[in-house]
């Protein structure tokens, strides 16, 4: 059985797909391909990646708290940095020389791409795990989301000025994405029953989308397996047609919304063959889907080219991505990263751990 790709990102003709500690990149117009190995020695898993705007550099953060910058054309590692904590999200500045990272301890740092030894700069921090980070196109605002329902809008580069807080989520936030062709709206989702469309400059809610209802309807209509909770896995956008696609953990469904008349309206609901691990729009408006791999899975990646009726694209483009590594079995739970952000799940895990420790200490006492 093949190891699945757990991440996929697109920027300026380049698509990058990640499995374990490796990355495969293909330039869709030149057809050039390259494979990167983030950690040859310990094979630690990759946690987050980001391209710069022209897709000449890829920043990659792995579970060993290593941050590497890769030259996408040559496959050369440009520099390696050590981050204090695991990195959950990365964003490049427009000029591509600097990145901002959001970490599991709640802090945001900036790193420059080249100069190997240059110190990181601390920009801001929440007292809560950070899940995502965005930088507005005009680079006036940096937006961070956390495990405690908060989205914070901070001035950039004067990050000592907090602009506002977008408050409304009742659960953790996992993803945020700017609305295409618009300078002040973003969509956020997480463990909530709703997606929120924010005017982030004024911290006002423009629209809420009841995904609980949407998902339940879709499950009933298509006879899908019921799930316990809804956890937004990814939000990706296609600017030419003002489309916004959203997918969830443990659900073979993609909702595609159109941004029209200052509102998002559901345009397509796509039922996929496999459980989805990640999605990314390319510049032809196709959605690249990385599939969870089990006995029934045929492809590690599928390209959705038409949404109604659904059409999948040529296998030819996918040959490069066909093989990953072989393994005996894939554990779906290993790939479910966002549902663990739920407080009750984490608390339950903590309680279990404490119980285990209690038992161990008691045993030791008896001995």
């Amino acid at each position, binding site marked *: 059985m093949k190891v699945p790709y757990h991440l996929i990102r697109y920027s300026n003709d380049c698509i990058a797909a990640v499995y374990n500690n490796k990355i495969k990149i293909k330039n869709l117009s030149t057809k050039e391909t390259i494979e990167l190995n983030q950690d040859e020695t310990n094979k630690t898993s990759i946690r987050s990646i980001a391209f710069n705007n022209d897709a000449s550099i890829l920043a990659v953060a792995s579970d060993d708290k290593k941050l590497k910058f890769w030259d996408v054309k040559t496959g050369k590692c440009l520099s390696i940095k050590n981050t204090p904590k695991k990195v959950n999200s990365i964003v490049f500045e427009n000029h591509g020389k600097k990145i901002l990272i959001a970490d599991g*301890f*709640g*802090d945001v740092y900036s790193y420059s791409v080249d100069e190997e030894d240059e110190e990181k700069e*601390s920009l*801001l*921090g*929440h*007292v*809560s795990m950070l899940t995502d980070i965005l930088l507005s196109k005009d680079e006036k605002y940096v937006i961070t989301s956390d495990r*405690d*329902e*908060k989205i914070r809008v*901070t*001035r950039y580069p*004067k*990050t*000592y*000025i*907090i602009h*506002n*807080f977008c*408050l*409304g989520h*009742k659960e953790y936030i996992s993803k945020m994405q700017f609305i295409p062709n618009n300078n002040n709206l973003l969509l956020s989702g997480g463990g909530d029953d709703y997606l929120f469309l924010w005017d982030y400059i004024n911290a006002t809610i423009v629209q809420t989308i009841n995904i609980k209802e949407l998902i339940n309807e879709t499950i009933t209509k298509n006879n899908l397996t019921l799930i316990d909770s809804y956890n937004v896995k990814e939000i990706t956008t296609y600017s030419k047609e003002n489309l916004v696609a959203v997918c969830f953990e443990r659900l073979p469904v993609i909702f595609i919304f159109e941004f029209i008349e200052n509102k998002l309206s559901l345009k397509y609901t796509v039922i996929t063959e496999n459980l989805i691990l990640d999605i990314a729009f390319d510049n032809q408006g196709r959605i690249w889907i990385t599939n969870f791999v089990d006995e029934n899975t045929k492809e590690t990646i599928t390209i959705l080219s038409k949404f109604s009726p659904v059409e999948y694209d040529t296998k030819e483009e996918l040959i490069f991505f066909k093989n990953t590594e072989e393994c005996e079995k894939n554990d779906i739970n290993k790939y479910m990263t966002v549902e663990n952000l739920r*407080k009750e799940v984490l*608390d339950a895990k903590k309680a279990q751990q404490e119980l285990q420790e209690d038992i161990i200490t008691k045993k030791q006492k008896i001995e």
Partner: protein
Amino acid sequence: MEDSEQTNKEDILKLPRKRFFRQRAHANPFSDHDLIYPLKPEEMDWSPFYPKYFSKNSKDNTKKIDFIDVGCGYGGLLVALAPLFPDKLILGMEIRSKVEDYVKQRIDALRAQNKDDLYQNISVMRMNAMKFLPNFFEHGQLSKMFFLFPDPHFKRKKHKNRIISPNLLAEYAYLLKIGGLLYTATDVRELHEWMVEKCDNHPLFERIPDEELNDDPCIRCILHETEEGKKVARNKGDKHFAVYRRIQDPDE
């Protein structure tokens, strides 16, 4: 029936005794999943806290909290400030529930003992102030914030738990009015220097020279009326304080 009401009343009138409310000295500000907080400031119902000034579900509640005492401990500062600022609403925030219980009973007793509106302007809440202040207060709402004798968290690794830090100062600056004041006090020299350094380095705060604070009645309260301040005096320790003004950035 009458009987129990009677004892109840007497209970309220009696000031609580601190020794029944002792708790572990340090609280972990990162585990707090049982706290109750509003989604956003507009949704907060303040009527249980300040029944004289807020009515339930009423849109015409115009009062807003003016001062907060972060990590208020046993509430000495609140009690001292109440008569000095009768038209300001003052809230103490305390993470340890037994300590918060004590302060609540103390305020209830003081309110019951004083028939006029004295002590109606102070209240206490169990809360983790490091995490949830933006849920309670709006941008530029507060005019004073007190951080008195905070837990020192000596170990380097625990510095992130300190209640004054560069990251949290950005949040305090967001909540304070331009011209609003931030007070710190401690008996730990190293912590004092740390807090001064962090505040000095924050572009939105400016230190007020100690000589200019002679007329500020809060200074006497923070040094002599807080439980920690009294304890330090009994032990003949040093007391350090610093006051900062929230200033405006040209880009704000």
